[in-house]
């Protein structure tokens, strides 16, 4: 390999890249802009921004005290943004996409629900009108509604003004029930009498009865902890977002590096190189080296920006982070060579190369984390280099893993690079077909 020629070709490639304003913007600015956007919608830098509330319309046809309390409890819930609506207005709002779910509380809800707590028979039917494109949010609304309805109804049934009447009615129904097993009948009666006694004590002296207002409440509390690199380190969704977008746009840069070769071949520049006493290894090696240098510079610039502006730190091994970046840069450069040697004309090659890149990026988890893929797709995704790159960067950036966690991705990426490079040398042709 001729070193002066190699050096001159690498220098030429770098000069041409940095003189191309479009290429620089696409490679440096675009990943930052899009990563920022994705990072923001997936939680932002500090991740302490309150989540978006679900838009809920309540159609309260019952208008009883209990129904109003249930609606008030829902309105106070941090996950919902509740508005009162008439039935048709609510339906139209859901149809128009302005409201995610409409909760229709039927007439007689209060009476039927409190009775149904102790007795079988007619239960009120709460209707949920929902936007089918927000199926997940419907489940959240169901859960929140169930929690608040149970708390309000059970409290009303056991300690509210109408609780004694409800208990008396239930005792009467229980005594009159002919189909019930006598032993079960006796047990139910004792329970209802006990609730009645407790209810009277509560009414006479709430403090003596233990306070609390009666009824069912959630029988546990929950504490959440995001497990990140270390205690005190908050998850920064910008970290994954920048990793994913960096991978995507560096692959685009790899395509461009390959396309440049095709354009140079067409322009006659390759005739000059072929006429000179330099080998194909000099040409391929210089192209790969310049592309790898550009890729590395892009990653350092993009992650540098992420650190300064969004506080994305390398929580894991810094050496591992650099190793993953370097291995991915080398893999990208050989990917560009593949584009160059398999492409015939720039026009015909560009579309296919972009499609392949988008598939690689999608499977690699650059857009959305790979763990939300179906299991089979998660397995398949290990067959693409982007998955290793994204996983490796995630591990080094926010999972806080050590260098040992970087070894797998580095080896895998270098293996892909070796295969791509070997294919490029094998398929290399000076002249076009």
């Amino acid at each position, binding site marked *: 390999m*001729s070193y*002066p*020629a190699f*050096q*001159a*070709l690498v220098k*030429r490639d770098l*000069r*041409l890249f940095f*003189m*191309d304003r479009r290429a620089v913007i696409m490679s440096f600015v675009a990943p930052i802009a899009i990563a920022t956007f994705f990072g923001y919608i997936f939680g932002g830098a500090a991740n302490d921004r309150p989540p978006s509330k679900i838009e809920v319309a309540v159609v309260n046809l019952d208008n009883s005290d209990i129904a109003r309390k249930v609606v008030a409890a829902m309105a106070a819930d941090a996950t919902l943004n509740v508005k009162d609506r008439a039935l048709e207005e609510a339906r139209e709002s859901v149809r128009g996409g302005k409201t995610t779910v409409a909760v229709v509380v039927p007439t007689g809800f209060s009476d039927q629900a409190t009775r149904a707590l102790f007795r079988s028979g007619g239960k009120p039917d709460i209707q949920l009108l929902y936007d089918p494109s927000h199926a997940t949010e419907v489940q959240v609304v169901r859960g929140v509604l169930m929690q608040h309805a149970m708390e309000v109804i059970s409290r009303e049934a056991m300690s509210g003004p109408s609780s004694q009447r409800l208990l008396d009615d239930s005792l009467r129904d229980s005594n009159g029930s002919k189909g019930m097993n006598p032993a079960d009948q006796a047990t139910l009666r004792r329970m209802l009498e006990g609730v009645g006694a407790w209810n009277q004590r509560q009414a006479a002296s709430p403090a003596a009865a233990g306070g609390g207002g009666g009824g069912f409440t959630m029988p546990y509390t929950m504490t959440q902890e995001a497990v990140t690199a270390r205690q005190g380190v908050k998850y920064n969704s910008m970290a994954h977002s920048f990793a994913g977008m960096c991978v995507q746009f560096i692959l685009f840069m790899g395509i461009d590096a390959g396309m440049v070769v095709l354009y140079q071949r067409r*322009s*006659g*520049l390759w*005739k*000059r*190189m*072929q*006429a*000179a*006493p*330099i*080998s*194909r290894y000099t040409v391929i090696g210089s192209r790969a080296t310049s592309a790898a240098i550009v890729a590395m510079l892009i990653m350092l610039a993009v992650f540098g920006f992420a650190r300064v502006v969004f506080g994305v730190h390398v929580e894991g091994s810094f050496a591992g982070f650099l190793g993953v970046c370097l291995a991915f840069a080398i893999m990208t450069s050989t990917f560009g060579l593949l584009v160059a040697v398999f492409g015939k004309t720039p026009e015909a090659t560009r579309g296919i190369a972009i499609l392949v890149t988008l598939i690689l990026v999608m499977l690699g988890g650059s857009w959305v984390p790979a763990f939300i893929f179906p299991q089979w797709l998660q397995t398949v995704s290990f067959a693409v280099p982007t998955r290793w790159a994204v996983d490796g960067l995630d591990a080094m950036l926010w999972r806080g893993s050590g260098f040992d966690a970087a070894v797998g991705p580095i080896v895998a990426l270098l293996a892909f690079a070796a295969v791509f490079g070997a294919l490029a040398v094998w398929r290399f042709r*000076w*002249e076009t077909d």
Partner: protein
Amino acid sequence: MLEVTGLHKRYGALVAVEEVTFVARPGEMVGLLGPNGAGKTTTVSMIAGLLKPDRGEVRIAGGVVRGETDPVKLRIGLVPQEIALHDELPARENLALFGAIYGLRGATLSKAMDAAFDVAGLADRAKDKVGTFSGGMKRRLNLAAALMHSPTILLLDEPTVGVDPQSRNQIFASLEELKRHGKTLVYTTHYMEEAERLCDRIIIIDHGKVIANDTLAAVHKLIPSVNVLEIGVENAGTDGWLDGLRTLPGVTAAEWDGSVLRVTMRDLLACSPSVLVWLRDHAYTCSFLGSQRADLETVFLTLTGRSVRNA
């Protein structure tokens, strides 16, 4: 010295170059002449090592190029038909790149660049981007880039395509200067007047075959009695209108270029009257009449039966 022996290249059923043989000596300029698609570029590509011949051999100063990095390639400079330069880079960086590809560095590289700029007459534009150059200036720089490593053999593949007269004359002057310095030049063109002005030896190629290979004077002698009658015809006919004229005794060719009818004949005195009578009998109106000695265009026409530009 460049020795080309029995070069042959086939693309499927098409024979692009067939048994091409010639020698080009130091200080000599050899013109490869022929219409587009005749096989000139394929021949030059095989000499430059861009294409592998199916058979035949190219010897450069007695050596055969073996492998991509063979130092024998240092003796060749190629001026491709395309303008093989980086428009985005300044002229100086372009030349530096092509010099470095041939292993030049430091002071040697600077000296070579200065010399190449002198040949191209572009020293004052060295720092300007090539994209800002005119077509003629780019052609001159294209030539300069091939001279960076001081090759002994220069292959020029249609180096004046799309060039203004001023740049063309400058290129011609540069080539004549290189010839005086003992360089061997192989020049492909389909401009007959260029070959007549520059080349010591003319090789006429048609359909991949050499149909003439000699000095300019000797090629003229191939058809010593050929003359051309030029007639301005105001009401020329449509396709096939000259078929009858071509059958007249002594007429070897008749071509209409849209304004002038050129009738090639061996004996001007014997044939001219019958040509004029034929035109009068077919009611064609003549605006002028003239004659000239055969040039290369006519030689090609006589040898192939076709005009080089229409071939």
